[in-house]
């Protein structure tokens, strides 16, 4: 059975790992072919651009910035729009001349200033290398969407407050560690 865009958004929101994988695979080849034809981008970078675009799409859904009510075109258009924007940024970074892009979508997300690509990489590495129990707590909270009560039971904490405190301590520890590593743009 074919999934509608609403089904896909819901599957991503619910973090159904099987369906998230299938949705990733659904547009992959078409995007790679599409970008190969349109841009002078190194073919090795195209897959990475698609993966980054897919992650951006998922995060927009997790952060409630994209949902079934505010999606103006199709999920595919949105994903391709994000991918093209990333591709343009990659081109600009490599000093390539950019042509005017006729591809437009009403859903094109605004460019968020964020912390910058380099800082994001540093943060990603810190999270990947995070020790226990912090890694498990944060995954349970932000990926599995578990409530503090569930985390407390599963991780044998005394009560809900202890689980919550442990989670915030972990975030605080990470932030303290990262403050010395990341560089804020003025």
């Amino acid at each position, binding site marked *: 059975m074919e999934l509608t865009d609403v089904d896909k958004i819901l599957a991503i929101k619910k*973090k159904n*790992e099987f369906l*998230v*994988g*299938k949705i*990733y*695979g659904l547009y*992959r080849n078409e995007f790679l072919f599409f970008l190969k034809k349109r841009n002078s981008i190194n073919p090795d970078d195209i897959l990475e651009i698609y*993966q980054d675009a*897919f*992650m951006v799409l*998922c*995060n927009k859904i*997790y*952060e*409630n910035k994209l949902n079934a009510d505010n999606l103006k075109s199709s999920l595919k258009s949105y994903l391709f729009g994000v991918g093209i924007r990333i591709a343009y940024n990659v081109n600009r970074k490599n000093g390539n001349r950019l042509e005017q892009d006729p591809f437009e979508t009403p859903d094109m997300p605004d460019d968020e200033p*964020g*912390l910058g690509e380099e*800082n*994001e990489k540093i*943060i*990603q590495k*810190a*999270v*990947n290398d995070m020790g226990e129990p912090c890694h498990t707590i*944060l*995954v349970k909270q*932000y*990926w599995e969407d578990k409530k503090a009560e569930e985390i407390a039971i599963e991780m044998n904490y005394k009560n809900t*407050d202890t689980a*919550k*405190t442990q989670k*915030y*301590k972990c*975030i*605080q520890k*990470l*932030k303290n560690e*990262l*403050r010395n590593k*990341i560089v*804020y743009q003025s």
Partner: protein
Amino acid sequence: MEDYTILEQEIDRYLEGTLTVEENESFNERLKCDPELVKEVELQRSIIRAVRNERLGKIIENEERQLHKQVRIRQLVISIGSFAVAASLIGVFYLTYLNNCEKLADRYYVAYTYTPLPSRGGEIVSLTRADSMFFNALVELKKGSKKQAITLLENLDNSNYEMVAATDPAIKWYLALAYLKNGQKKKARFLLQEIIKKPNSEFTEKAKKLLNEL
């Protein structure tokens, strides 16, 4: 809960969208005039994204592995299919070739007739062991045991056995037919050329005709 994590709690609720309307308005006001708070919010948002991206990265990695596996299986199926088609074509071609050679040899095959001649004393000269081998070879050839016929006839062709019934051109002729039946055209052609070199043989004309057809 401990107070020293109060900022993390507040940012978490802001990012989750669980602040009350008043709390949210107040937090937005603070963000407008506190650049340090903006940095804290961005950092915490990036940490949460990084936790999700780590899991998404694993899903993507797994899906890529599956996709590559599917491509490899598809390539393997295509390779096996192409190989099977090629092998079938070669097989059909070879069988057709063999069939054509065999039909040609059958068309030219005529049983060898030997009329015993009396010796000067009026006695019939008895057949030698080599003659028996020759007739055995012809029986094998007629039966369709091409390889056995070839072995026997090659043996006779390469030796100087004493023979009464069989002649050298006859051995070469039937060996050429046996080769042809077996699909060995080159060897058959060579023997036919050998026969033609002896113009008085009863097989010379037949050999010429067969050579032309080959």
